[in-house]
C-alpha cells in the first residue's frame, strides 16, 4: 500500500496539496548525528541520568495512587508539581506565585509551541536573537510569524539594537508582539545577559507592549555561581512568560516543561491545549523524584560534571584551535559558540570535522534571516573529558585542514 503506486491513493503530491500552508513550508526535524564524537546534540551526560532514582519514583507514583497516576490529569498539569515549580520560582525571584500561575507542558519545546499557538497569528512580528534556538525559530515560523532578528554579542541580545528595532517596527505600522530570549546560557551562543541589559530589555519591552518569552531551559546548569535575576523577576512578574524544563537538569526523555506567568496569560495557554494534558504518570514520577532528596545533590553533581567539561573543552580549544577560533566560555549550559577566523567557512569546517569523526554544528542553522557562516556551535555536555579532549584535538586538525595548514 505504498503511497506512490498510483492506485487512487494519496501520493506525495496529492498530500502536499491538502496541507496547510505552514505544514507545506516546513522540513522534517533533523535527527541526531551518527559520528563517533558527537559535539552536536545538546543533551545531558549519559552516566549522570538518575535512572535508578526515577525507577523508584515511578514505582512510588504508580503504587501510591494508581487512579491518579493513570487517569487524565487535566490540561494545566498536576497541581502539586505546579505548586513545587511555583515555590521554586518564588524562592528564586522573590515573587509569590501560586500553582494557578503555572502550566505544565510536554517539555519546554512544547511550551514554546503552546505559546506560539496562543499568541502568534500569520504575519505577527516575533523578535528573536541572531543567533537563536532553531526549535523556537521553526515553531514561531510554523504559526506564520514574521521573524525579525536582533543581533547578539558576547553579552547576549543587544538591547540598543532591540530598542531601535522595536521603534522602527512601530513606525512601520507592524509593531512586534513577542520577544523570545534565552537570558541564561543561550543556545547556541552560551551568552548570559548582564543585569543592566536585563533591566533595559524589560523596560523597552514594556514600553512597546511586547510580551517577553524568557526561555530558561538551561537554568540550573549554573557553572559560575547562581544566576542573575530573571527577566520575570525584574518585570515584577508582569509581561514575561518564563519557560523552563526538567530536560537538562533531570532527563530529556521525561518531556516535562513549564510556563510561569500572569494568570490571564496562563489561562489562555491552557485553553489552547487540545491534547488532554501531559502525562500525569510522568508528572507524578517527577515530583516523587524531586521530593526524594536526590535532586539537590544531583544538581550539584551535574554542575561539577559540566564545569569540568566546560573547562577541559575551553583549554582544549585554546590549545588546539586558538588561532582559528575565538570564543568566550559560557557561565553555564552546554555550549561553546566559536567565531571562526576570517576566511574559514562554517560549512567547510563542519564537513572537515565530520571527516575527522567529530560532529559539530555550523552556525548557519541558528539564524532566522541568514548569517552564521563564521560560527560553529560545539556541545561540551555529552562527552566525558577524555573523549572531549580527543574530539577537540580532532576538531583542531579539521580547522588546520580547512585553513590549508595540513
Amino acid at each position, binding site marked *: 500500500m505504498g503511497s506512490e503506486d498510483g492506485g487512487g491513493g494519496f501520493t506525495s503530491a496529492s498530500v502536499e496539496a491538502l496541507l496547510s500552508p505552514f505544514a507545506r513550508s516546513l522540513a522534517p526535524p533533523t535527527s541526531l548525528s551518527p559520528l563517533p564524537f558527537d559535539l552536536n546534540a545538546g543533551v545531558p551526560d549519559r552516566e549522570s541520568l538518575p*535512572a535508578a532514582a526515577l525507577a523508584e519514583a515511578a514505582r512510588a507514583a504508580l503504587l501510591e495512587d494508581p487512579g491518579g497516576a493513570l487517569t487524565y490529569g487535566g490540561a494545566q498539569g498536576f497541581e502539586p508539581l505546579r505548586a513545587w515549580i511555583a515555590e521554586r520560582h518564588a524562592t528564586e525571584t522573590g515573587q509569590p506565585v501560586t500553582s494557578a500561575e503555572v502550566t505544565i507542558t510536554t517539555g519546554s519545546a512544547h511550551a514554546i509551541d503552546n505559546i506560539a499557538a496562543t499568541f502568534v497569528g500569520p504575519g505577527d512580528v516575533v523578535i528573536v536573537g541572531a543567533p537563536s534556538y532553531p526549535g523556537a525559530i521553526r515553531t514561531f515560523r510554523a504559526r506564520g510569524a514574521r521573524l525579525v532578528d536582533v543581533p547578539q554579542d558576547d553579552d547576549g541580545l543587544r538591547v540598543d539594537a532591540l530598542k531601535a528595532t522595536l521603534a522602527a517596527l512601530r513606525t512601520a505600522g507592524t509593531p512586534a508582539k513577542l520577544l523570545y530570549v534565552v537570558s541564561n546560557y543561550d543556545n547556541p551562543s552560551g551568552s548570559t545577559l548582564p543585569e543592566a541589559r536585563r533591566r533595559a530589555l524589560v523596560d523597552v519591552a514594556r514600553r512597546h507592549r511586547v510580551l517577553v518569552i524568557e526561555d530558561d531551559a538551561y537554568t540550573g546548569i549554573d557553572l559560575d555561581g547562581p544566576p542573575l535575576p530573571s527577566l520575570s523577576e525584574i518585570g515584577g512578574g508582569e509581561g514575561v512568560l518564563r519557560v523552563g524544563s526538567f530536560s537538562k537538569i533531570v532527563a530529556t526523555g521525561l518531556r516535562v516543561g513549564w510556563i510561569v506567568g500572569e494568570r490571564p496569560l496562563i489561562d489562555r495557554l491552557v485553553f489552547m491545549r487540545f491534547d488532554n494534558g501531559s502525562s500525569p504518570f510522568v508528572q507524578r514520577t517527577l515530583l516523587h523524584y524531586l521530593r526524594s532528596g536526590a535532586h539537590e545533590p544531583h544538581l550539584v553533581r551535574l554542575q561539577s560534571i559540566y564545569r569540568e567539561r566546560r573547562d577541559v573543552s575551553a583549554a582544549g580549544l585554546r590549545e588546539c584551535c586558538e588561532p582559528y577560533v575565538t570564543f568566550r566560555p559560557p557561565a553555564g549550559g552546554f555550549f561553546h559558540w566559536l567565531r571562526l577566523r576570517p576566511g574559514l567557512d562554517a560549512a567547510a569546517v563542519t564537513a572537515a570535522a565530520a571527516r575527522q569523526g567529530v560532529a559539530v554544528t555550523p552556525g548557519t542553522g541558528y539564524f532566522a534571516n541568514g548569517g552564521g557562516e563564521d560560527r560553529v556551535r560545539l556541545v561540551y555536555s555529552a562527552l566525558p573529558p577524555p573523549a572531549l579532549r580527543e574530539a577537540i584535538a580532532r576538531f583542531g586538525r579539521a580547522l588546520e585542514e580547512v585553513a590549508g595548514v595540513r
Partner: protein
Amino acid sequence: MTVEPASPLVDELARLWAEYDLDTLTSDAAQYLSAGTATDWGLSAPVDAAIPPISLGSGIPDPDHLPREELVAAMQRALGAVDDGPLRYGGAVGFEPLRMALAERYTRDRGMEVSSAHFTLTNGSAGAIDLVCSAFLSPGDVVIAEAPTFSGSLRTFRGHQADVVTVSMDHLGMHTEDLEATVERLKGQGRRIKFIYTIANFHNPMGAAMSLARREHLLRIAAKHGILILDDDAYGDIYFGEAAPRALSALSGGHGVITAGTFSKMIATGLRVGWIHADPAIIDRCTRMRFEMGNSPLLHRMLCEYMRDGALDHHLERVRHLYAEKLDILARALREHCEPYLSFKKPAGGFFLWVTLHEGLRADVLQAAGLEEGVSFPLGYAFFPNRVDPTGEHIRLAFSWTSKDDLVEAARRLGRACERAAEQLKRANPK
C-alpha cells in the same frame, strides 16, 4: 537578589500595562475558544450538590482494573535497560519498537500488511487529532463530522479555525447518503473540505459501530472528492461479542484514511500515549508539524515492555468481559427503574450508552433532578456543534468507570430523578 519593592519603574510599567488588552495579543484561534468543559477532557463535570453524586460522566477505564503491577514491572524493565534511551530525546515519531508492535497488532487484528513507518506516536489520540489538524487545516477549511460526536474533537477543530459541518447518524453509524449530499452541497459552494471525522467503532457518545456497507460508501465518497477520512478509533478494541466491521484503514488498503488510536481506553488515560496510523506520506507531513521534540520515550518503552509478553491481550480479554458485564448491569437496572421515561439501544462495544428520553422529559431538567437525587451525567446536546440536539432529548451514560454497585444505585437514583422531572413537567403544564 530581589527586586526593590515598588520601584518607580514598576509603577510606571504597571500603569502602561493597565490599559493593555490581552485580546490584542491572543491569536485568532485562541480568541475564539473557551476553556472547554470536563466532558471535553473526558472527565465528569465537578458538581456542587447536596448528595455526592454517582458520576456516569467519565469515559475512562475502571480504576479497580488498571494493570498497575504489570506497568510497574514494565517500567522497571524499561529503566533497567542497558542503554540510556528511555531518558533521552526519543525523536519526533516515537520509539520504533513500539510502533513496530502496533504494526504487528494491526496486521494481526485487522488483516492489513503495515510497518512501523505507518505509525507515529502522540500525546494520546487527542494529541493525534490535534497534530492531524495542524498538518491539514487552514482557517476556513471544512471538517465534516457526525452529529452527535465527541465534544473534545469539536473543540480541537474550532481551535484550528475550521468550520464543522455535521452529518446525521444512527445506530449503524454515519448516514452516508446525507454525507454525499452534504459534500456535494459544500463543493457547490466552493468550500474546501479537508477531512471527514468519524468515530466508526463504538462511537462516543452513541455507541454505534458503522455498518460495513456504510464504511464502503463512505470510502467511495471520500476518495471521489479527494477528502481524507479521520477515523477516531479510541474504542475499537473494546468490543463485547464480535469486533466491529473491518477497519476503514484496512478496507481502503490505507488509501486516504488516517486513524487516531490510543492506549487510553485499553489501558489508562493517564499514560497519554496514542498514535496516528496512516500512509507514510501522511505521517511525514504530520511529523513536520511537531515542535515538542516528541513524547516521552520512557512511556513508550514501558508500554513496549508491557506488550512484549502478551499482557495487553490478556488485559483486553479481561476488560472486554468486565465492560460487557457492566453494560448489562446498567441496562438491566435502567429498565427496572427508569422505564417508560427512557430507552436505549445496547452498544456492542465502547464505554457509552446513548439514552433517549420520553414522556416529554427534557435533558437539562433531568440533569438538575439527577443532581438532587445524587447522579450526574452529561447532556446529549454537549455533543453537537451548536449545542442543539435536533433529534430529540438525550443523555449519555458512561458505564466504564463507575463500580457495578454504583451503576445499580445510579439507575435507581436516575429513576427517581425521572419521576421528579415528570412531576415538574406536569406542574408546569397542567392540562
